[in-house]
């Protein structure tokens, strides 16, 4: 215990003393946001794995408390970054400019470097991750085997932030795959009955897609003109640095010479998009998602839906669109079609679900379709909308899954048919459920509404009367949400029959930690619904910069 405490102390100190880089500026990303959570969680896991089983239950409580404190450090830093508290950040960025850039040499022979930075695209996602990890820890306060569960959540957070801040393709891919491992274990160790199947399916699906993406990245890498200098590989003569790649692609696209042949661009764009579409997930690559969600523990589902799905959308916005704008034009209709199909398919399938969590999972598929519509619109407002949708869905969907988790916890069932008259038994849970469902179906003054409205605004100039289709689907969304509420909250309440799955016990209401977590999520849903400009300003600026930097400069 003493040794463990010392290690924890050292790790804690590490976070509070950000290292200085060569130019004398303080590093706010590498160590406090990425390195600290991963290293601390590895230490905790190694420490916990050496304990006897009986001791593990004893040390679970201090570890839980410690992980909560450790996860608050990145949250404090990212919040301070946003409000310019203590740390001065210039968020007024042009296209391909990044705040807080940090670059260290890593694998020089292939030109991979530890290059991180943030802009209007990545910062909202980083903040969302730092925000969700402590909320998830609070929400699943009583999860079993806490000594290993909470460190895994922390590690997940660190890896996810790594994906969002990476400005080097190699680093990006490393973190992209690293996120699979904690999630794999979360599903495998804490999952439901079919967790073996779900965990493997989740891992294999996303891994298969990302190796295709990696082949696309490698091909792109070798298609760069050979060069030498800092950041360029000593053996290969190319670089993985995204900023260099973007500059290169933009200047080539803007000038007379074309960056790559048209068909080459299209093929590479498709290869990269495949990896991102599976992660998103879009129909027809979505089948891993319902299985993973239904089997995953509540905390895993919250992070999976809240941030991990956004990795796909983030990747699309970050890499292929910026490098291959011509290919985006080529694929515009196809992406729009995939987005519409995801939207419609997800919503229609929701209507037929009897499992509450499965229904919520399919509603995620539907919402991710909205993001694709925003991307396909090729309007600045569409990109801002896609980004805001990612952000809003990142706050709302964890709440949906938290409600599902509370159901599972207190009613021992996930079947909609088993729950009757919840308003009578668990009034708090009923209120939160109603709130979350309303937020997800796009009630005005809640965050989801802003995003959907903006997507429709971008959709009109791009596709005209096709706008009726997504509008209609939003009505279906309202239908399945309202119908499920009607069946679970109100129906049968007066007869006073508790659900059968409880075997005669009186159903309890939710616990205090769950209450706290849900209130936090609900408050932020309202805040970003009423004052969307808090987050939207930065997103808008980024979208306009991307539009000017890529599409207008590229002559599209």
């Amino acid at each position, binding site marked *: 215990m003493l040794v463990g405490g010392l290690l924890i102390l050292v790790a804690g100190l590490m976070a509070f003393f950000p290292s200085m880089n060569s130019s004398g500026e303080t590093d706010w990303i590498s160590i406090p946001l990425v390195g600290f959570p991963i290293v601390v969680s590895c230490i905790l896991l190694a420490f916990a*794995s*050496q304990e006897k089983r009986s001791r593990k239950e004893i040390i679970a409580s201090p570890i839980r408390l410690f992980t909560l404190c450790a996860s608050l450090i990145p949250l404090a830093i990212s919040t301070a970054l946003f409000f310019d508290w203590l740390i001065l950040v210039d968020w007024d960025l042009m296209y391909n400019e990044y705040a807080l850039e940090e670059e260290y040499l890593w694998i*020089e022979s292939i030109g991979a470097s530890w290059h991180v930075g943030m802009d209007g695209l990545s910062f909202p996602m980083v903040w969302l991750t730092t925000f969700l990890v402590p909320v998830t820890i609070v929400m699943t306060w009583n999860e079993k085997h806490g000594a290993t569960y909470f460190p895994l959540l922390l590690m997940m957070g660190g890896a996810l932030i790594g994906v969002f801040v990476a400005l080097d393709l190699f680093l990006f891919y490393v973190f992209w*795959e690293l996120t699979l491992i904690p999630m794999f274990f979360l599903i495998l160790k804490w999952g439901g009955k079919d967790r*073996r199947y779900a965990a493997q399916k989740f891992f*294999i699906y996303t891994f298969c897609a990302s190796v*295709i993406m990696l082949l696309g990245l490698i091909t792109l890498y*070798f298609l760069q003109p050979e060069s030498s200098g800092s950041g360029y590989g000593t053996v290969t003569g190319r670089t993985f640095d995204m900023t260099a790649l973007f500059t290169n692609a933009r200047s080539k696209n803007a000038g007379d010479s*074309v960056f790559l042949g*048209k068909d080459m661009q299209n093929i590479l764009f498709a290869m990269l998009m495949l990896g991102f579409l599976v992660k998103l997930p879009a129909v027809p690559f979505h089948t891993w998602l319902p299985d993973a969600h239904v089997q995953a523990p509540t905390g895993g589902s919250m992070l999976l839906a809240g941030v991990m799905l956004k990795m796909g959308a983030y990747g699309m916005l970050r890499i292929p669109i910026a490098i291959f704008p011509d290919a985006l034009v080529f694929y515009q209709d196809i992406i729009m079609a995939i987005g519409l199909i995801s939207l419609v398919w997800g919503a229609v399938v929701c209507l037929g679900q009897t499992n509450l969590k499965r229904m919520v999972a399919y509603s995620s598929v539907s919402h991710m379709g909205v993001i694709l519509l925003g991307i396909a619109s090729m309007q600045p407002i569409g990109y801002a909308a896609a980004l805001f949708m990612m952000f809003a869905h990142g706050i709302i969907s964890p709440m949906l899954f938290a409600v599902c988790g509370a159901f599972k916890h207190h009613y021992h069932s996930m079947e909609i048919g088993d729950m009757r008259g919840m308003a009578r038994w668990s009034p708090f849970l009923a209120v939160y459920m109603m709130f979350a469902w309303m937020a997800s179906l796009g009630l005005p003054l809640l965050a989801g509404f802003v995003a959907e409205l903006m997507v429709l605004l971008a959709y009109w100039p791009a596709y005209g009367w096709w706008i009726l289709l997504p509008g209609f689907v939003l009505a279906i969304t309202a239908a399945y949400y309202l119908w499920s509420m009607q069946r679970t909250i109100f129906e049968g309440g007066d007869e006073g029959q508790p659900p059968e799955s409880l075997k005669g016990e009186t159903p309890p209401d939710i616990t205090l930690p769950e209450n706290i977590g849900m209130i936090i999520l609900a408050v932020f849903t309202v805040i970003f619904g009423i004052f969307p400009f808090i987050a939207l300003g930065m997103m808008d600026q980024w979208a306009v910069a991307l539009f000017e930097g890529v599409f207008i400069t590229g002559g599209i």
Partner: protein
Amino acid sequence: MGTEVFSTEFWKAVAPEAILVIGLVLIFVVPNLGNSKFRIPLTKVQIPWFLGGRRFKFTGSPAIPGMLAAATLFTALGMMVIETIDGKMDTTTVTSGETVLLQIDAFSRFFEIIFLAAILLAVMASLDRIPANTFEGKKTLDELYDNRRQADLYILMLTTAVGMCMVALAQDLFVLFVGLELASLATYVLVAFHKESKAGAEAGVKYFIVGSVASGIGLYGLSLLYLEYGSLQLDVLASDWDGSILATIGLGLVLVGFGFKVSAAPFHFAAPDAYAGANSPVAGILATASKAMGMIGLVRVLLVVALPDVDSDGSAIWLYTLATLSVVTMTWGNLAALGSTNPKRMLAYSSVAHAGYMMAALTAVGAWKWGEIEAPVEYAHAIVAAVLFHLFVLVAFKLGAFLVLGLLEMEGGASRLSALSGLARRDPLIGTAMFVFMLSLAGVPPLAGFMSKFLVVSGIVSASIGDLSGSVSFSDLHWIWWLALAMFINSAISVFYYLRIGVVMFLDVPEEGRRKPLPYGASIRMAIWICLVATIIIGLSGDTLIDMCYRAAESLNLG
């Protein structure tokens, strides 16, 4: 620098190998030292003779051969690493008259490091796997058996090492073949070493029969080459190579011999049986060092000898042959591994798949050289360096996986998947190590296996692109780009069976009779730790190793 055989410079240059031979002789001699005396006939004068009689207490210990072998390998390995690590490695050729026999350069030293590292780790594991029971008192029959065969085991291990080093140094195909046979014969016996189990003996016989047939075919191919060119010197063959029909047939037959060693389809059939029947450390040697030995043969024959001039297009045959073989090998290996429930068979098939990946890389060099791709020689060096990197890191994680199985064998068998069940609960660190090895084999970053796959695919893609730039269209790429795609699809397939082991270890309940903690085994655990640390460190920062591989590839003189 050239030296004559048995000159002073010669001994300086081959000092590590000489140490191996000395160690080998010591293992023969030391356990036999005793107080015997030789009486001169018809007199009463007795001269101390030391060989035989009552053993001295020190030399009579059954632990001596293992210690000697480990010390010998460690010394030789250390000398080689010190020699190569700074990058200023001189090239020394050993000649006998006009004939160049051996060449000591960065390339051969690199391979020797692979061989010795793998065999050293296997020896460390064997110290616990087949333990010498030095304690006093009554011993069981098994313990007596184990004590009796200590010397045999380590003699065979060191013979394998000497043979493999000879293959790495050889500049003459005949010398190469002699070394190959020396190593092969030793490994045949090692496979059959566990003669209490029927599977071991059967595996040994199978491996021996198939292996000797493959060697025989290879030897016939060599004789055809000799018939055509009148020499088996690598440089003579390389300069005279014209791709005539007789030579091409000879080349094909030689490929069969080496193909068996790297366990390339369709010559891989003995491999799963051999791996499954052998002790896990021995199986680990087969999967890493023995494969690297075969790969030397392929590199020497395909890239040094049979790289034709650009304008002789008639002999482009092996490009297509090797491309087909590589795709067949990787796909066959992965599909067969999907269906095997014996972890050792599964690792054997995965080793077949890895052979396919490396052959795909060699194909890319072939494509470069044929003039279909315009690119500087650095590309070829980078591809060969990727193959070397892959062979090196295989020692870390593939051998590591076999050693974990070896640890399980110490408590009775690791031939069923259920033997692994609950391993992570019984021993979290060993379970985690095994999971890391599996992820590394599957190619998950940031582990060494990812780096190696990444480098191999990069090599293939770079060769398919060449120095094209500007407005490149997809049809401008060379068709070997599809090999990279095949490789990645295959590595996606392979995730299935690697992940299955992880799931079994972390989710399932330990089977009956395996509820107790794992056997201890200090040195096998140390070997596993070395493998684990190497897997992670090389994955996180492989720069030193990449440079080393690149220098080794450069000394091959492909240009």
